[in-house]
């Protein structure tokens, strides 16, 4: 792969912005020598993604607006860059676009850091790559844009234009709302302090309860499209967050529905197909936590809430988890330093399906990564850049949501840039700590997760195997146990009053062939050793079992279940002061009074044939 070291030469005169100059200068000074040089190394300034069209088999001189660029704009840009849209300029025909060609090239080349367009910051070289409403550009598309801009931004043959660039019917919503409600207008003076407080309740005009599939909030204000002119965060908005609920007046707080936090420049939230959120008939949206930030200009603004519903007969399957990962207390960000890391952890008490990852930082925020640690297996689920002017939620595409077993440690790392290269920070010479102000700091993943029972977790993994057509040697990011038909759940022993509860779904009378004492010789790299198995009828008539290993006293099985053609025993082996989860899977042997056995000891798998004593 080669790099165009002169990628930013030959610009269209008069169209270079200050950012463009900075990016161009950085590109020329730090031109990487290959794709791998697109560094995400903490503390290093991000390099633009400069790509050569020739590496994709494209003749740079043949790249035109009508054939190559317009389809990219139609998919990823004109939703905002249109008359009346959120973008400060329209990109709905060649004449509008041509003068901004260098700027489009420079902003798209940033790709996944603050200042990038489109504002979607998923890093493409790490973690899961499947998201809902992903507007990001491929390497080939970046190469085309760069070749086109560097070549004078030719229009090409009008007959090549196959896409609609002027979305006259576009109403600005990125979901398909079935219901839109509006808040009252607020007036924020240009020079006042940050404020947190209530909004007037907003009536929900529904006659029947509905489950919500997606929600989107947008701020409508009287600021010019280029913003207030303030140099720091939030020049285009005054609502910097809204924490809100919907509740029928008079109902208990526990009967309310909580909704994702609205933040500056936010994109829609998509709920799982299995966990829509309830919007009750006759309810109201209420909040005591609207954060208003003066942007230097007197501003009138209101919020519009768009709700897209599931069908009327929809019933949710799963419960939304109440999980938080973050540390908003102990933040310390030194002055004039880039690449400063913040860390927070949470141990999952339930199996979890992660629907969305939503980094929430403040002005110095530059990047956040989400990582899952299951035992000694560590895997990054997602790394994204961050721009506090464009807070994004990243909803994983269906069948790519992480499926994590209980006991997994979720770890987020925030990367903070408190240097002049971050224009969101008012004064990078100052130390920064935590707080609610836009100039103070938060550090949290506000994403959406679902809690799964063991049975649901197993079913979700089976579905994943089927849909993705996974083979036993396939690994998918974010699903460490996906190929384990019997999941290695770390907490398989339920207890009551300190005593383990034995779970057995096998009636002894229906398992007479198992009753008795068995000897199981196991082959290991170190040789053969025997385990004893004793099956009996419990007081409740269910099958009971104890396992007699050679080095420790017999252990009662904590779980005895039928498998397709045999039994699955789970027990805990005590050795060297540690408890080791173990599973024995027994199936009928080739000869009478024998059983084939597979034993899993904390990841070691051994097999042998058990023989019944006296058989």
């Amino acid at each position: 792969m080669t790099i165009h070291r002169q990628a930013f030469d030959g610009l269209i005169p008069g169209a270079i912005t200050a950012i463009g100059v900075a990016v161009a200068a950085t590109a020329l000074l730090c031109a990487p020598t290959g794709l791998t040089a697109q560094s995400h190394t903490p503390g290093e300034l991000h390099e633009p993604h400069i790509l050569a069209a020739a590496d994709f088999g494209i003749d740079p001189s043949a790249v035109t607006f009508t054939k190559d660029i317009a389809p990219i704009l139609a998919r990823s840009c004109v939703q905002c860059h249109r008359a009346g849209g959120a973008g400060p300029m329209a990109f709905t025909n060649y004449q509008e676009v041509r003068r901004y060609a260098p700027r489009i090239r420079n902003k798209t080349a940033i790709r996944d850091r603050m200042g990038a367009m489109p504002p979607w910051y998923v890093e493409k070289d790490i973690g899961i790559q499947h998201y809902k409403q992903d507007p990001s550009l491929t390497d080939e598309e970046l190469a085309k844009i760069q070749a086109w801009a560097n070549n004078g931004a030719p229009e090409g043959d009008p007959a090549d234009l196959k896409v609609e660039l002027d979305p006259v019917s576009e109403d600005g919503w990125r979901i398909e709302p079935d219901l839109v409600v509006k808040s009252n207008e607020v007036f924020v003076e240009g020079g006042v302090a940050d404020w947190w407080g209530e909004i007037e309740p907003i009536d929900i005009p529904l006659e029947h309860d509905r489950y919500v599939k997606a929600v989107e909030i947008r701020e409508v204000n009287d600021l010019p499209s280029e913003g207030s002119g303030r140099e720091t965060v939030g020049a285009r908005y005054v609502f910097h967050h809204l924490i809100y609920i919907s509740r029928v007046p008079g109902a208990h707080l526990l009967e309310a529905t909580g909704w994702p936090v609205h933040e500056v420049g936010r994109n829609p939230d998509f709920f799982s197909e299995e966990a829509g959120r309830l919007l009750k008939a006759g309810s109201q949206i209420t909040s005591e936590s609207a954060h208003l930030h003066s942007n230097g200009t007197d501003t009138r603004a209101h919020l519009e809430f768009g709700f897209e519903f599931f069908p009327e007969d929809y019933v949710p399957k799963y419960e939304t988890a109440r999980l938080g990962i973050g540390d908003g207390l102990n933040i310390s960000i030194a002055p004039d330093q880039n690449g400063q890391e913040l860390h927070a952890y949470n141990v999952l008490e339930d199996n979890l399906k992660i629907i969305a990852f939503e980094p929430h930082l403040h002005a110095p925020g530059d990047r956040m990564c989400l990582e899952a640690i299951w035992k000694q297996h560590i895997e990054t689920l997602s790394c994204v850049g961050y721009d506090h002017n464009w807070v994004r939620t990243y909803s994983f595409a269906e069948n790519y949501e992480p499926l994590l077993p209980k006991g997994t440690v979720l770890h987020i790392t925030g990367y903070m840039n408190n240097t002049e290269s971050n224009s969101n920070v008012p004064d990078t010479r100052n130390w920064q700590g935590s707080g609610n102000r836009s100039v103070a700091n938060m550090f949290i993943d506000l994403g959406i997760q679902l809690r799964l029972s063991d049975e649901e977790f197993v079913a979700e993994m089976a579905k994943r195997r089927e849909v993705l057509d996974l083979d036993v040697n396939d690994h998918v990011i974010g699903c460490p146990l996906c190929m384990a038909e019997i999941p290695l759940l770390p907490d398989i022993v339920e207890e009551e009053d300190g005593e383990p509860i034995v779970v057995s779904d096998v009636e002894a009378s229906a398992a007479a062939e198992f009753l008795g004492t068995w000897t199981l010789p196991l082959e290991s790299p170190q040789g053969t050793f025997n385990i004893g198995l004793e099956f009996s009828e419990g007081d409740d008539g269910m099958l009971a079992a104890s396992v007699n290993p050679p080095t420790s006293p017999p252990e009662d099985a904590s779980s005895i279940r039928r498998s397709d053609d045999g039994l699955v025993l789970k027990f805990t082996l005590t050795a060297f002061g540690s408890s080791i989860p173990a599973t024995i899977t027994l199936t009928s042997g080739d000869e009478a009074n024998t059983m084939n056995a597979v034993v899993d000891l904390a990841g070691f798998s051994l097999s042998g044939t058990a023989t019944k004593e006296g058989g």
Partner: protein
Amino acid sequence: MIGRFAVLLLAAVSISIPDGAEAQRHTYTKGQPLYPAYEGWEQNEDGSIDMLFGYMNQNWEQLLDVPIGADNQFSPGTADQGQPTHFLPRRNRFVFKVRIPSDFEEDDELVWTLRANGHEFKAYGSLRKDLFVDNVVIMSETGALGAGSSNPEIRANVPPAVELQGGMERSVRAGETLRLEAIVIDDGQPNRSSLVLSGGGSSDDEDDEEDAQEEDEAAAPEEEEEEDAGPTPRQLLASALRSSTATVTVSKRSGLHFTWFIYRGPEEGVEFDPPQIKPWEDTRPFANSPWARVWEAPELPEDGRWVSEVTFTQPGTYVLRGRADDGGLFSDVEVTVVVRAAVS
């Protein structure tokens, strides 16, 4: 055979132990930097402007003493602008104010320099509009509003009124006990909150069960609380530690209290009775700090009279600061104590 099985089990145990992934975030007790912090500026009713400063002592235990001088000074102007010389651990917000001259212009700066543990840092005070502060901002940033929730009642909160009894300058011999007494009156806002931090809001919802329980607890009559002793702090801690709720932002337990701490002068040889509530953000459980995950506000004295005793073993001049804190806003008083040598 048994030996071989033992080897296998030992291997199984070994691979179950985390392989020592390095902790990248440590809780150092000493040796780390002391950062001066510029908190913002506020405008008084008469039009004058105060700049507010605090600090972050990155250490969890080390108390730092930095005398006024090259290592602890303001510029331009007078080096001593009333800043502390005794620095408590961790985050201390809105510690002191500096009145800026009337001819101070928007491009001017007031700079506080601190050097400790071999590191020098500066806080640059300016009149940037993003840093305009009022009482709501102070309540928000010290944690009284959780993740940013308020209502007209809490926004109307005013700082407690505190009156020092016995004068602002005292003299005592080393080893003698000095009685300190302050009368505190407050408006009752914000409501006294429960023992355990809910985390300042859950991951994305405001309606989680903990918040609801807190709301109910806050609304419950006091006599009902007395009849039902409820869970002990340790039980609450266990509950809190089981909670998956994150601390999304700075959060503080409310409950009027008055506490003394050393503002200027060394800590060594100074002993308060009773032990004082920490005015700094000790976020560890049971840390006797309103920012701790579990903290119980003290009983209010019936006459509003808060009495403490302090003993010094080393002669010298000490400035003690007394803080009346309602959980949202606070008022300070100071007493200068000259400690003379003990009579031999």
